[in-house]
């Protein structure tokens, strides 16, 4: 769910690589932005009964929801709050799903002066969350926790991700770090913890593969001081905000044109650190530390002006996708009968002659016949035609005994 978002799209792409997963269905209210090969896309408003029908029809056993946390602006795709989550959970229950994976955010813990330096999963939100997103998140998590309590036989995983860093993401934190000088509150050097987008996707895929019930913090090793981050990015730290009356001053500055994100003020003061050890005990290895993630961000920031123009963005066309996947005229290596199997690396035409020859003996008979027609109509390579005939003969002789 949420396949149109950055997370859903990338996750689907990664899950496609796993041959053990038979079916992947992506649901969202807008089109996906990643090129996917065998994920079936269903575009729907998040009506829970429809979702339940889809799940039951495709006999899915796992739902992965990436919509609770929006990491892209402007808002795209499914919007999740407490009510919507409860509906989804009801749908999951009625459809007989076995596993549920929810992508949440470390914003759940909030940020404050009485906070511990590293939040562990059993700590709850310290105080009333200030922002709308924070409140939604607490509601969503509460709904999930209630559900998990009622259904101890299901595996419910909640992944609380630290500040994500990646090329396609647009979060308030990243836009703050994207400014030529990083604004800060005078007299405060908060510590922030990041996680690379590859690790977020990796953790989601890991949660889909492994049964890990409960909440897990997904965060990279290392909690960096904001001054440290600014130093890594090669930018000065500008303590433009006063320590008292910060909100007032920030609002003023926004009016003057300085893009200071208001929702970040608490984090600019206190920061937040997460204890990521529970995730590690499930066997997932994080690929990047916070520092490495920021260095990658630096590389991206340097490349961005070069890539901004002339890059063809993938556009999802539903008819084209449907044709590519389901039309009998499209030949996948191994023939149409293997359409539901492991993903191919391209079409039939991409295979060389010797590769084809190697593949032919493993084809089903009808697939082989179709292939022969296609080959005869198209390239008509004599070696291939010979091989197919030979195989068909063998099969005939075996069949007739």
């Amino acid at each position: 769910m949420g396949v149109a978002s950055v997370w859903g799209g990338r996750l689907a792409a990664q899950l496609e690589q796993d041959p053990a997963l038979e079916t992947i269905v992506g649901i969202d209210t807008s089109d996906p932005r990643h090129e996917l090969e065998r994920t079936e896309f269903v575009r729907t408003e998040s009506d829970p009964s429809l979702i339940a029908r889809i799940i039951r029809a495709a006999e899915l056993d796992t739902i992965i929801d990436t919509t609770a946390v929006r990491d892209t602006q402007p808002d795209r795709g499914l919007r999740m709050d407490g009510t919507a989550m409860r509906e989804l959970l009801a749908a999951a229950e009625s459809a007989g799903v076995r596993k549920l994976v929810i992508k949440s955010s470390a914003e759940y813990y909030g940020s404050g002066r009485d906070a511990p330096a590293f939040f562990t999963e059993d700590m709850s939100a310290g105080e009333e969350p200030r922002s709308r997103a924070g409140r939604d998140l607490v509601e969503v998590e509460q709904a999930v926790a209630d559900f998990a309590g009622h259904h101890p036989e299901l595996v419910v995983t909640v992944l609380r991700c630290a500040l994500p860093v990646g090329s396609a993401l647009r979060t308030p934190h990243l836009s703050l770090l994207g400014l030529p000088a990083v604004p800060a509150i005078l007299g405060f050097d908060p510590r922030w913890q990041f996680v690379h987008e590859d690790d977020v996707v990796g953790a989601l895929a890991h949660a889909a593969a492994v049964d890990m019930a409960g909440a897990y913090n997904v965060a990279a090793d290392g909690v960096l001081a904001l001054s440290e981050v600014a130093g890594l990015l090669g930018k000065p730290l500008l303590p433009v905000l006063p320590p008292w009356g910060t909100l007032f001053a920030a609002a003023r500055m926004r009016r003057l044109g300085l893009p200071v994100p208001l929702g970040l003020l608490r984090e600019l003061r206190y920061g937040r650190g997460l204890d990521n050890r529970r995730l590690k005990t499930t066997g997932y290895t994080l690929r990047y530390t916070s520092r490495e993630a920021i260095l990658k961000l630096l590389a991206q920031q340097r490349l961005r002006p070069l890539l901004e123009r002339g890059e063809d963005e993938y556009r999802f066309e539903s008819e084209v996708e449907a044709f590519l996947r389901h039309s009998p005229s499209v030949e996948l290596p191994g023939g149409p009968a293997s359409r539901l199997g492991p993903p191919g690396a391209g079409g039939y035409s991409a295979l060389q002659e010797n590769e084809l020859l190697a593949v032919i003996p493993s084809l089903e008979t009808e697939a082989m016949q179709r292939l022969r027609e296609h080959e005869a109509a198209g390239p008509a390579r004599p070696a291939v035609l010979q091989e197919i005939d030979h195989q068909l003969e063998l099969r005939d002789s075996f069949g007739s005994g």
Partner: protein
Amino acid sequence: MADSSRTDGSDPGVTAELTRREHLPGLEPERQITDWGRSERVDRLVDSTLSHFLYHYWLRVEVEGVENVPSQTGALLVANRAGQVRVDAAMVGKALREEHRMPRPLHVAAPPALSDVPGLGMLATKLGAVTEHPANLHRLLHDEGQLVLVFPEARQDRVKPLSSRYRLRSFDRLEIISLAIQARVPIVPVAVLGSEEATPALSSWGPLARLTPLRLGLRLPLPARFRLRFLQPVRTDRLGESGELPPWSELSELTQDLRALIQENLYEMVAARRSVWLG
């Protein structure tokens, strides 16, 4: 939590403990700031200038028993305090760095209110101050095996009058002591002599105390001679069941014993010194 680390017959509690320790974030040598916020750069700067001056020349610190501080494992250092804690904490840290054979960084438990103070809070963190949240202390003591200094005397609104200096207030902060027990680390009592005179709270002087309840202090400590005595570590692993909180009575008893121990040593040191300023 996944049971991947469980082997037959082993205690899951112990296994979980080991797993938590080995999954701590690794050291990144390129970074000079730790995850707790301690900055090597700032620390070294202050150490080589201000701390050095105070330790060797101004306060002329004398240290006894520094070998009582363990070299490898974590330990909770418990000290008495006078007006300004920062000088005491700095001197204890400096003493470890100068005199101990395995100098390790010292973390100082600070009240959460400190992190709200602009500038000062930031500086304190960079020098090793840590908010005294139980989760923080547990991680430092138990998981990371670090040294943590606490000042368990009850905080009062009214400042201690000069006449009752070196009379320890009650150790109200039992929860901090219990943390050391839960973390299974030794407690090292530290008696600090000299801070009462070096950093008197001016408002403890009679007439001023009546005028204002505010805590006024001096910026630079007066040059009283400092004496730090590290006492025999108190082992905590005998107390209570493993990982569980010992009964309140045991906790209270231990706390009172610690207080009495430091008090005794303080009085002894006061009696032994000839001059406040010259030692």
